[in-house]
């Protein structure tokens, strides 16, 4: 697909751009940090949306984010937890030696180099310019390669006929789906439903923002305290980071 991002080409171009900007005027860069996007403008890679989750603040037993997500996307279950669609899961980790328990929400990590996109035979699994990884259900054939490729078990397959979808979350039988980082909200300067719910519950465990903007809350937090990637060894450069792991 022509709009697919080619890493080596991009690296070359960004180097060329730096070289170009130096010849124009030293220290002056011809690029701007992201502002609120006008409605009719396509998303661009000047923004990279990300999320920081503080596991120390994430309350054990609380499923506020999961419920908000289910509501937002009208995810209905069929009492079959093995196959019901799930965009976020609450995961508990217990350190055997100390008994220390960590609770965290796990969803699509919105990798910079998503394995799900690599394996997709139709181009349905895709990464937007602003770093959000999505499934284009219009061309998804339901082969589920992406589900196998994802190291985070983040994707679900819709097994049943779906009715009564919401306006912003079309979903149907025979396609794969996962966390969309609430693109429908983000494109209108909103924040994802899970982050909103967590803040409303006063847990404040989730921060959403632009990783490319050094002044954004998430970048500041990450700069100060750092944030770990789950399975950092895979070098996927995830957009979702965790503290307290």
């Amino acid at each position, binding site marked *: 697909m022509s709009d697919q991002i080619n890493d080596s080409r991009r690296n070359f171009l960004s180097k060329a751009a730096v070289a170009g900007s130096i010849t124009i005027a030293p220290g002056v860069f011809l690029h701007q940090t992201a502002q609120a996007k006008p*409605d009719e403008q396509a998303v661009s890679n000047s923004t990279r949306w990300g999320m920081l989750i503080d596991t120390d603040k994430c309350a054990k037993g609380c*499923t506020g984010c*999961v419920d908000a997500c289910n509501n937002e996307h009208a995810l*209905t279950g069929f009492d079959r937890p093995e196959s019901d669609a799930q965009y976020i899961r609450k995961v*508990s980790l217990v350190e055997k030696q100390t008994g220390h328990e960590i609770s965290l929400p796990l969803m699509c990590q919105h990798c910079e180099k998503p394995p799900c996109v690599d394996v997709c035979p139709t181009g349905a699994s895709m990464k937007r*310019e602003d770093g959000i990884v999505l499934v284009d259900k*219009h061309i998804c054939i339901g082969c589920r390669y992406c589900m196998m490729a994802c190291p985070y078990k983040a994707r679900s397959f819709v097994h049943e006929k779906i009715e009564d979808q919401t306006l912003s979350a079309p979903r149907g039988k025979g396609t794969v789906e996962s966390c969309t980082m609430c693109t429908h909200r983000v494109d209108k300067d909103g924040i994802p439903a899970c982050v909103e719910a967590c803040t409303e519950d006063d847990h404040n465990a989730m921060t959403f923002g632009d990783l490319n903007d050094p002044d954004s809350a998430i970048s500041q937090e990450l700069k100060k305290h750092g944030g770990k990637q789950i399975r950092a060894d895979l070098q996927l450069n995830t957009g979702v980071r965790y503290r307290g792991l």
Partner: protein
Amino acid sequence: MTKRFLQLSLILTGLIMLFPLQGMAETPFPTIHEPEGAGVKCVVEDEDVMRRNHMDYIQHQRDKTMREGIRAESDGSYSLSKCIDCHVEANDQGVVPTHNDKEHFCVACHEYAAVQIDCFQCHADRPQKFIKRAAKDMGGE
């Protein structure tokens, strides 16, 4: 000679039998639900243009929205949900048709033209105000 005559008469009777079927094969034109205040111009294009080209318009918009995040709701943008919002309404019995009913705005024409619609396998077929959703807790851990 007799064989030839038999062949000819067989062909003739076949032709005669075909004629009355012509009149019977016609399918009645679908009744298309007009939005409130019939005669109002569609917000996007003229009726005949929409009838002919809506699939191309919507498909173009779908890729822009899906891949580029362009969710413009200004005039001149095409949107399936906008069509639905105006054209799908409760009928005289107070029932809102779904994509399984032949009186649904989209289905009525598509049945007539014998073209399958795939949109509603994923997209909502009624305006959101008509959809009653049971908030079901799927649990977390």
